């Protein structure tokens, strides 16, 4: 049976309800929460600050260091806390997705640390993480070319859908599920794409266009969250 209706009744080009909020970690230089439905990510930014070990310092620019971690209670089976093969990979991926958007030439020999924590996982955690990190970086006053928005596109059998959840990720019928996570800088330039499954190049192009459209909406939500943080202060 083809995938004609989504499990949670969403439209094919509809994301889960998005919540975004900045300033959630008072001790950080910048922080943000970003949620796609039940997937909740919290990002905190520290720096620019002195980089240790010293041999990692770059005298021409500051560097970005991202640390992605799932909290032990974020999934139904407890996961062992601390770095794993998966979280190390996602840390690096998130770093690359954000690196082309930030401008750290003014801060040589320094590091900007981003800590992404997944509080609740229901698939697309790396996308929620990148969105939260981009918000937190802006909130921390790090110079950026543009905000980065990230979304996952799924191919359930032959149907392309936006923002996959866990149920869809595990879809087995027909051609099965393909999960494509992608990030856009300012909803224009692609900074990261990952593919897990099978897809034709024609469909991939289509998926990228869908992702771009979804990211436009996400960036609007991110902008709103940042501006709201200012208004609350002014009340």
């Amino acid at each position, binding site marked *: 049976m083809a995938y004609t209706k989504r499990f949670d009744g969403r439209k094919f080009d509809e994301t889960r309800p998005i919540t975004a909020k900045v300033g959630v970690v008072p001790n950080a*230089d*910048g922080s943000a929460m970003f949620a796609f439905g039940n997937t909740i990510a919290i990002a905190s930014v520290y*720096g*620019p*600050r*002195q980089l240790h070990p010293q041999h990692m310092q770059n*005298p021409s620019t500051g560097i970005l260091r991202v640390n992605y971690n799932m909290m032990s209670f974020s999934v139904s089976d407890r996961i062992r806390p601390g770095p794993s093969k998966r979280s190390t990979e996602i840390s690096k991926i998130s770093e690359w997705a954000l690196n082309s*958007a930030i*401008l750290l030439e*003014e*801060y*040589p*020999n*320094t590091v900007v640390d981003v800590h992404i924590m997944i509080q609740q996982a229901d698939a697309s955690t790396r996308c929620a993480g990148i969105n939260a990190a981009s918000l937190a970086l*802006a*909130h*921390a*006053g*790090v*110079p*950026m*070319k*543009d*905000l980065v928005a990230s979304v996952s596109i799924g191919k359930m059998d032959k149907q392309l859908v936006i923002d996959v959840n866990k149920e869809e990720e595990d879809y087995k019928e027909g051609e099965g599920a393909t999960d494509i996570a992608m990030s856009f*800088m*300012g909803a224009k330039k692609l900074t990261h794409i990952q593919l897990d499954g099978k897809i034709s190049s024609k469909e991939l192009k289509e998926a990228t266009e869908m992702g771009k459209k979804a990211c436009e909406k996400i*960036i609007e939500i*991110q*902008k709103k969250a*940042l*501006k709201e943080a*200012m208004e609350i*202060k*002014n009340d």
Partner: protein
Amino acid sequence: MKIEEIKENDIEDFKSEEKERKVVVPGEIIISGDELPGEGTRKDGKDIIAQRFGLVDKNEKLVKVIPLSGVFIPRRGNVIIGKVEDISFNGWLTNINSAQSSFLPVSEVPRFIDKHHLDEFLDIGDFFSAKINGVKAKGIDLSLDSRGLGKLEGGIIISINPNKVPRVIGRNGSMIKLIKDSTNTRITVGQNGFIWIRGDNVEDELVAKKAINFVSEKSFVSGLTEKVEEFLNQEKEK
């Protein structure tokens, strides 16, 4: 005394204080036209695009973004408040709330110091006000060779975001003068966000602290001076 030196760098920020200011986020187009891009912005074709999260400040043709958050970026000539972290044979290693390490050499202290007992002048944990003498790759050099700089004795130290310092000082030092006069305290504001408050009693110091936090939280409300005045009057009645 020290306040005068600080404020001069920041007067230009206040020329257009009364104007309604727009909040921008990175990547947002601020304005399209033949304006010039200033700090925190870039020009792409005709559009001036924000590169930081902050408030737009348009001064004739120059458009810039005033950041609301971020760490302290030390510049030569800044007057700062620091804390002694360690003592070496020729000076003090200090914490001035910046990414780089900072050092205050004995040679930059314009008074006699016993070389074998540096802790008699500044001990670990002491606070002092100093001037940034230079920012180099290996660190920041400090100096006490200016009027009004030196060890800060008594009083309390509070910390605010360094980007809020110009608001706390106010136009031509008006805001800080208001707080100083009505709480009867002496206040030194460091560009790095550390503030030293010294009054005759702790109560006065705490009122001044509350007032400064009030300013830094509500730093972009229009007519802030009146609100602070009101706030201080309320505190006095308590």
